[in-house]
């Protein structure tokens, strides 16, 4: 009995290692393009800001005419529910999915919903640890959840420098924050902040009369509109885009560290357009797509040969909080429950 167990365990490990060593990679070939073109479209579920997502789709459609990208944008957590609903009803709409909550991919991989699809570029160029060695997902983008303030309402010297500063009574009724039940970025950030600062931080924060919005794209908009002068969390990339467009907003990287949010992409096993999905997947990791995402989308890329636009602080100079999707995956219920207790929604 014990012997048998040991043997099968050894076999399993050997199989896994073999799989790791031999996870086949793929390149964009004329055959793949042709097969993708025959399928005609790819359904892309993503939690990236809708305008950035449509921008990527447009660039892909231009490069590969005849393949439509259907963009379905939703908050990562909402998207996660939707895919769960659809899969439990055996509806396989989604071909390829990108989420700002990396923990989702641990769940989907465990459920066997993902296909192994490892673009050659990813294995060769991207840092180890940014992609699943078995090829089920890879970090297509990353972003930060930052503090930001309206520069016409708050002077730089008065602006908060840290998360602790936000507890100052002078910010009462002046803060806006997005929701971890909707946004994967915020769920990830909430986990990291609770781990590093303690839940007592959120308990105190909740007494500051915080305006609660849903998506992590929304706080920058509320700050620019002057609805609240300071945001507690939200997408760094939206702040970049708005600032570069001339809006009165400035980023603050809190002294305690800035939550780092990895946004992987994976191809679904039951994709209706598997070739188009693999083509889009591989293309999204090319220098062309990544540079577009950085320039036009304000996102951070993990590709080493990317050029960071002037005026944005390089990732290497920012003190980051450590990302840990495995822990997020196991604690998600607890995070939402505690959040509800403090913030009531």
């Amino acid at each position, binding site marked *: 009995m014990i012997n048998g167990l040991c043997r099968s365990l050894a076999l399993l490990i050997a199989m896994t290692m073999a799989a790791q060593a031999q996870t086949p990679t793929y390149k964009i070939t004329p055959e793949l393009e042709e097969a993708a073109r025959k399928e005609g479209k790819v359904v892309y579920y993503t939690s990236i800001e809708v305008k950035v997502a*449509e921008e990527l789709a447009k660039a892909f459609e231009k490069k590969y005419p005849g393949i439509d990208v259907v963009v379905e944008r939703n908050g990562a957590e909402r998207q996660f529910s939707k895919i769960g*609903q659809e899969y439990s009803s055996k509806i396989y709409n989604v071909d390829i999915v990108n989420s700002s909550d990396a923990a989702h991919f641990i769940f989907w991989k465990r459920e066997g919903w993902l296909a192994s699809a490892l673009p050659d570029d990813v294995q060769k160029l991207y840092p180890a640890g940014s992609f699943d060695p078995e090829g089920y997902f890879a970090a297509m983008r990353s972003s930060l959840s930052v503090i930001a303030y309206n520069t016409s309402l708050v002077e730089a010297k008065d602006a908060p420098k840290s998360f602790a500063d936000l507890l100052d009574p002078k910010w009462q009724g002046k803060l806006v924050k997005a929701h971890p039940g909707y946004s994967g970025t915020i769920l990830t950030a909430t986990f990291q902040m609770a781990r590093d600062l303690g839940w007592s931080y959120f308990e105190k924060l909740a007494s500051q009369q915080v305006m609660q919005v849903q998506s992590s794209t929304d706080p920058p908009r509320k700050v620019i509109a002057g609805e609240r002068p300071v945001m507690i969390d939200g997408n760094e990339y939206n702040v970049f885009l708005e600032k570069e467009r001339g809006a009165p907003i400035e980023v603050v990287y809190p002294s305690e560290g800035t939550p780092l949010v990895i946004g992987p992409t994976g191809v679904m096993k039951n994709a209706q357009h598997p070739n188009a999905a693999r083509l889009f997947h591989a293309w999204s990791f090319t220098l062309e797509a990544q540079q577009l995402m950085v320039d036009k989308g304000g996102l951070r890329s993990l590709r080493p040969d990317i050029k960071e636009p002037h005026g944005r602080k390089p990732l290497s100079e920012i003190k980051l909080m450590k990302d840990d999707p495995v822990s997020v995956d196991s604690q998600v219920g607890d995070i939402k429950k505690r959040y509800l207790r403090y913030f*009531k929604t």
Partner: protein
Amino acid sequence: MTATPALKSFATADGRHPAGIDLSAGVLGAIFLFLAALVGLPLLWLAVFAFTNAKGMPTLANFGDLVSDPDLLDPLITTFSLAALVAVFAAISAAPLAWLVSRTNLPGRRIVRALLTASFVTPPFLGAISWEILAAPNSGILNRLWREMSGGTEALFDIYTFSGLVFVVTCYTAPYVFVVLSNALDRIPADLEDAAGILGASRWRVVRAITLPLALPALLAGALVAFLQAMTLFGSPAILAIPAGFHTITTKIYSLFQFPPKPEVAAAAALPLLIVTMLLLFMQSRLLGRRGYAVVGGKSGEARLMALGIWRWPAFALVMMVLALPLFLPYGALLKAAFSRVPAGPLDLASLTLTHVNFVFIEFSQTRRAFANTFILALGTASAGTILTLLIAYMVARQGGRAGRLLEALASAPLAIPGIVLGVGLFLAYTRGPLVLYGTLWILFFAFLTIELPVAYQQMRASFRGLHPELEEASRVLGATRLGTLRRITAPLLKSGVIAGWCLIFIGVVRELSAAVILSSQNTKVLSVVIFDLNESGDLGAIAVIGVTMLLLTFAIIGFANWIAGVGADPRRAVG
């Protein structure tokens, strides 16, 4: 009484059948079975889930959670307070309006009625978003103006509060009270008022002693409708309550669908809504019954209009100010947001932009699909619903009896099912075998059909009541079958009532969010859900463009339908 032969005979029925075979029994049976399935199936699943646990064992624990967990109990209390306050304020604001329009010589009464119809067409969630643009405490247009004028720093009005929510929901619920009340006021016979006048009562005394008491049951009935509307509303609370940091039961039910979904708790949370709705509807039917007693036999002359004298124009100004709240201000805000960079920023030429228009119609890949889905569903549901309710109303009116009453009860039952509850029920019913409809437009079609059934049926019943059976009898005597008579005699005579019913369903479908938000998926998104999603990411400009386009299209289609009704209204053609 099996469904298949009945449907088959109906499909071929064109009046050429031998007069001896009466098809109505078969059609009656088929409609009965269809309605029973349509209404019964989702409710059955709801009950099953509410009383079982995740493993499928019978339990009452879901209800235990409901009363012991403050996360569920607080929203329930909030919901009932909201509904009660809205009912009171809607009645208070609609009553003078209805009286002025129905019983006085207020200038522009037709326009006022038309404008109130327009506020009825406006989806409440769009109204809520417009009021965000107007009255967000810091960036809201009205609060900005107020600060400039007063020089202070305080907001005039914060929309992200409980009172803000009550206000916005009242804005879009008061039209219901207005309709119920002004219909009743139109029908109050003038002779009672005349009698009081002859006996020396002053004009105001007549209003107090005669008109008001006679209108009171209708006012209460209207307030009940307002209560139900406010209680079951999903969009406005989702948009205004969450930023303020509280839940209503509908937003809570929705949040129970977050992964991992807890349909059993959602089902349990939905049941109090269902029970309260049924209780209130029961009370309402008692109230309306008594009102019938008061004004039945009111064939006496037209309602006497009271001269307002020097108060005519002040009254008109007051009415316009009231109408500014659901209409002029929100529509102005939407138009502004559609064409400016910062939705609520100051209005100047530099901030004008076509970015949002460009985004919605060129870049945003969901636009076309959502418009197509919405209008396919609205047209389909309106047409199918019209035929269905027409048949039901015909059966009930001409057949009567126990079968008729049963049919009537089934057609009115969905009134007691709030949209979000029905959404949960349909989700439970059609995400598992044998019939998996989730992910197709059909599940939305059935949801909308069920939701709109009672209103459409009421409309059809009213039309049939004004129709004498002699013409039909003549046709039957001359040898036409019942269905042939229906097609050639009854239907043409009913045209304007039927078109009105069709429009009611159409508007209802375009406005619907609470069931759609649970039932739509990537391929089947409708405009209300797209707008809801865009609101969650704060894309107010895009929402404004979609919202305004949606309303223009709705008005155009309704105008077209009424134009057809007008063209076909020639009585000679209709009867011939």
